[in-house]
């Protein structure tokens, strides 16, 4: 009697301590989650604050005259004429007309530097699209140079950055701004152009298409092979040392650092099979090899989770093993397999290390049109921009990160949705 009383007392006295320990433990969890959220929040707000500027570009209003004599064009069908024509004279004459006091050669150069140096080509494209403009003049908004863009954006924020400009240039810009001829406009170039070394002309379309081509190939190669391997290992393979050995290897491969796959691609696909560097074919092959283990592992997990009763019922009804797998097990496991594939693809989308070895970390200005044209991918584009000296690339870098993140979030959400929507609980 006294013994159990003592025990009860001991328990009661320890109770306070145990409650406190539990509370502390729960607090640790809350703090951990809060720290994680804080880090994500800091990262996202930093990226968004730095990158939001990239979605707008500075434009300046000028009157451009498509002077036939200045250009030296009389026949639009003559390619040679179009190449030789002095397209830059179009915006240069417009700038001169607005600032007639600028006479010295050095000053004129500074004046022309106000607008983006791709403007000549832009005006050429405009004229070719609408030949009736020849001989006419129009008031048009011209894309500003990146230094001007930085100046104007910092001016709007209250503290103008003029270190890259001369006093004359600042004066001209103040004049333009004073007459409402400078404005920010949605930066469409960012979404429908390829890479450029001029920040104001650089866009992510080349990288997005490159990523798309590479991922399509990765999916085409790794998805069927991965499922076939998973089905064989789960449904047909005998359980012996060999299959165990293979299983261990697959699990190991899933944890191998991705740069190793790049070295493998360099040694086998480029040096042995002589596939050219830098094209989506080689990128797709390397990334497919990289994502295979992930797809095999998740597919096997999905196939095992289909209850044995379904297999037994199918076999009992007289189905062959082949039919049992293809008609029953595979369709039921498919949501799980797809989820795994999407997550594998998302990982492949964010990968740069294996691509370094196979030449996809390169400056490629043209937007790739096929699997065999040089291409780069989104994360590589981010890396290249982050490394560029021009400060206007800082905002481009953050904006490209936003685009990459939204693709990744989209893919992960669709994986979650697929699982919620299609997966069956047994």
């Amino acid at each position, binding site marked *: 009697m006294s013994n159990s009383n003592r025990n009860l007392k001991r328990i009661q006295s320890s109770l306070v301590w145990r409650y406190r320990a539990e509370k502390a433990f729960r607090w640790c969890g809350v703090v951990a989650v809060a720290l994680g959220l804080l880090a994500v929040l800091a990262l996202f707000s930093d990226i968004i604050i730095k990158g939001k500027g990239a979605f707008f570009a500075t434009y300046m209003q000028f009157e451009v005259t498509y002077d036939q004599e200045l250009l030296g064009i009389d026949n639009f069908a003559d390619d040679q004429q179009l190449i030789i024509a002095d397209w830059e004279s179009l915006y240069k004459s417009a700038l001169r007309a607005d600032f007639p006091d600028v006479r010295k050669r050095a000053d004129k150069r500074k004046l022309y*530097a106000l607008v983006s*140096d791709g403007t000549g080509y832009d005006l050429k494209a405009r004229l070719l699209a609408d030949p009736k403009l020849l001989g006419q003049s129009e008031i048009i908004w011209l894309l500003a140079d990146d230094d001007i863009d930085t100046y104007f954006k910092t001016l709007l924020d209250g503290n103008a950055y003029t270190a890259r400009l001369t006093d004359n240039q600042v004066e001209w810009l103040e004049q333009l701004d004073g007459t409402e001829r400078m404005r920010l406009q949605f930066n469409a170039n960012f979404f429908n152009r390829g890479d450029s070394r001029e920040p104001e002309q650089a866009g992510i379309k080349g990288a997005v298409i490159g990523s798309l081509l590479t991922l399509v190939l990765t999916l085409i190669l790794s998805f069927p092979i991965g499922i076939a391997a998973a089905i064989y290992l789960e449904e047909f393979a005998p359980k012996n040392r060999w299959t165990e050995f293979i299983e261990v290897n697959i699990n190991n491969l899933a944890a191998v650092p991705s740069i190793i796959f790049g070295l493998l691609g360099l040694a086998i696909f*480029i040096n042995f099979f002589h596939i050219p*560097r830098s094209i989506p074919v080689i990128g797709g092959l390397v990334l497919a090899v990289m994502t295979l283990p992930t797809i095999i592992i998740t597919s096997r997990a999905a196939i095992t989770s289909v209850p044995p009763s379904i297999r037994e019922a199918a076999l009992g009804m007289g189905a062959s093993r082949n039919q049992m797998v293809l008609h029953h097990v595979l369709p039921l496991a498919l949501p799980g397999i797809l989820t795994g594939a999407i997550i594998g693809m998302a990982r492949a989308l964010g990968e740069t290390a294996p691509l370094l070895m196979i030449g996809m*970390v390169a400056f*490629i200005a043209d937007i790739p049109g096929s699997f065999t044209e040089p291409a780069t991918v989104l994360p590589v584009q981010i890396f290249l921009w982050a490394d560029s*000296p*021009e400060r206007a690339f800082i905002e481009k870098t953050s904006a490209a990160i936003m685009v990459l993140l939204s693709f990744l979030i989209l893919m992960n959400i669709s994986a979650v949705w697929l699982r919620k929507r299609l997966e069956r609980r047994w």
Partner: protein
Amino acid sequence: MLGHKQLQSAIISVSLLLVGSAASARETVEVVGSSTVYPFSTVVAERYGRSSGKPTPKIEATGSGGGMKLFCSGVGTNFPDITNSSRRMKKSEFDQCQRNGVEEIIEVHVGFDGIVLANSVAAQPIALTRKDIFLALAARVPGASDGQLIDNPYTTWRDVNPNLPADPIEVMGPPPTSGTRDAFVELAMEGGCQEIAWLEALKESDKLAFKIICHTIREDGLYIEAGENDNLIVQKLQANPRALGIFGFSFLDQNADTVRGARIDSVAPEFESIADKSYPISRPLYFYIKKAHVGVVPGIQGFINEFTSEKAWGDEGYLADKGMIPLPQASRRTTAKNTRGLVAMTGDEALK
């Protein structure tokens, strides 16, 4: 629905087709090499692509050494056409090229790049000599008597030179894999090293020992390897006004509001001072062309013509706007003539 056999054969034939078509002749010029020349090479490539309407040359930044290795691997469309380099081709690389059948190589010296030591504009401007730099950053420095070496004991700039502030030495710079580091060590450290009499004498008698002393940077934490990304160093300098950073001139040019270049041997790092070579830490930039590829891969001739045109590499050309320091006009003229005439290296050049 497709049968499995059909599906299989379709996949195989598609992949064969892809690989097959890719392995045939190349339309795009392939350039590899130095990440220092990369920002200039890419601008030329882009301008050439836009003005000619031909495919834009593809530029990979593999580093000078990596580029040479790829370039010298052989002749044929699987090998690059041009390699960029932030130093001259080495004798060993030239021989490697010859062995692999890359016999005719055209060397083009395009300009210069300055390397700057900079600190935040929030800090006091600083002026250093190359000797100060050597004494502050070398792993081992001369001791009390000639011929004696001690582990670098200096922790503040005043320890190095009484005229300098008493701030702690804290320098952020590139890792050993970087070409910028190679050039910095060779030009700044070695330059300072030579100002010490017995070390200069050592250079004559034992070149290897001299190099080991002059080229080894301290590893006790006062020199911080900050990665290959120069933008990162600029950002770190903003956050830490006491530190100095080592990076390329174009990054100083772009970030003049946040960082300020140190005067070296009382010369400030400016466009003009690097061009007339009064600023001591500048290095030559090169690219090398495989003559056997000219005319086979379309666009090589056009690309090199664009690169060697006055509007690109001239005193007022667009490369100067990007921070490259041009050659003197006379050398530009002869180089352009030789390059366009595809005059190959003879092997008698003073290669190291």
